[in-house]
């Protein structure tokens, strides 16, 4: 693992992802760029409300806005999701080691447990 994870950004990414509306927006953008009107389509929400969600995603680096004057399409930037993925990889390795250790510990406890059962 050589990828260095930016901790602040990781927290910001998790915060940005903690909304079903924002995840739906990202899922839509995974299919291709879209403008605010198009993104608002499936939601019973005002355009300003949708814009607010897009701004959160933009700040987290998950969405990039184009510069074309009126249209300003949103596109998905998957880089922060890769950091989430890297964090998960490291975290997984720690848990796997712990559970290996749990297996060992349970094996050590077994004679005691069996002795306890015979006491009945």
């Amino acid at each position: 693992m050589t990828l260095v994870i930016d901790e602040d950004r990781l927290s910001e990414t998790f915060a940005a992802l903690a909304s079903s509306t924002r995840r739906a927006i990202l899922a839509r953008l995974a299919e291709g760029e879209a403008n605010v009107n198009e993104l608002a389509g499936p939601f019973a929400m005002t355009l300003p409300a949708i814009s607010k969600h897009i701004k959160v995603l933009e700040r987290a680096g998950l969405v990039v806005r184009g510069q074309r004057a009126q249209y300003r399409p949103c596109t998905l930037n998957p880089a922060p999701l890769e950091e989430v993925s890297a964090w998960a990889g490291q975290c997984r390795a720690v848990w796997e080691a712990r559970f290996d250790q749990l297996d060992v510990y349970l094996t050590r406890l077994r004679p005691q447990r069996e002795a306890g059962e015979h006491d009945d």
Partner: protein
Amino acid sequence: MTDDSASQDAVVIERSFDAPVDLIWQMWTKPEHFRAWYGPDGATVPVAKMDVRAGGSRLVCMEMETPGGSVRMWFTGEYREVIQNQRLVYTESMCDEDGNALPPQGTGVPGGHPAQTEVMVELEDLGGRTKMVLTHTGIAAGSPGAAGWTMALSKLAAYVQPLATR
């Protein structure tokens, strides 16, 4: 090692243990058991305080030997769900030894760590054996019960991954 789409974001690990469900429950909720397995690879757990009930707090210290001497790391959190022998949910943040949460950049943890994470343990009685599913997610600080968005995110990550590597 399983490698499905869920491994892309939150950590989801499924394991079976050759022990009854009430014993596995105690592994998570009784400090004397928890300390025995939680700190592998040269780490020990000198402190594990657990008030195992919804809203109760926890404080865990891990100690690691490094070339520069032993290093202690403290974690605090709150139990969100406690259903005996079935389901345990708690939050986890780095903290000082008094349990005051630290900002992640002050902790010096290599590799980074989200400010707050949530650990969910689900147990299933297989008649003498136990199936355990662990889900560990990074969550937005202060957001109540963020568990549940994990699966939606997995789908998204699975969708995005081929695009990212293109």
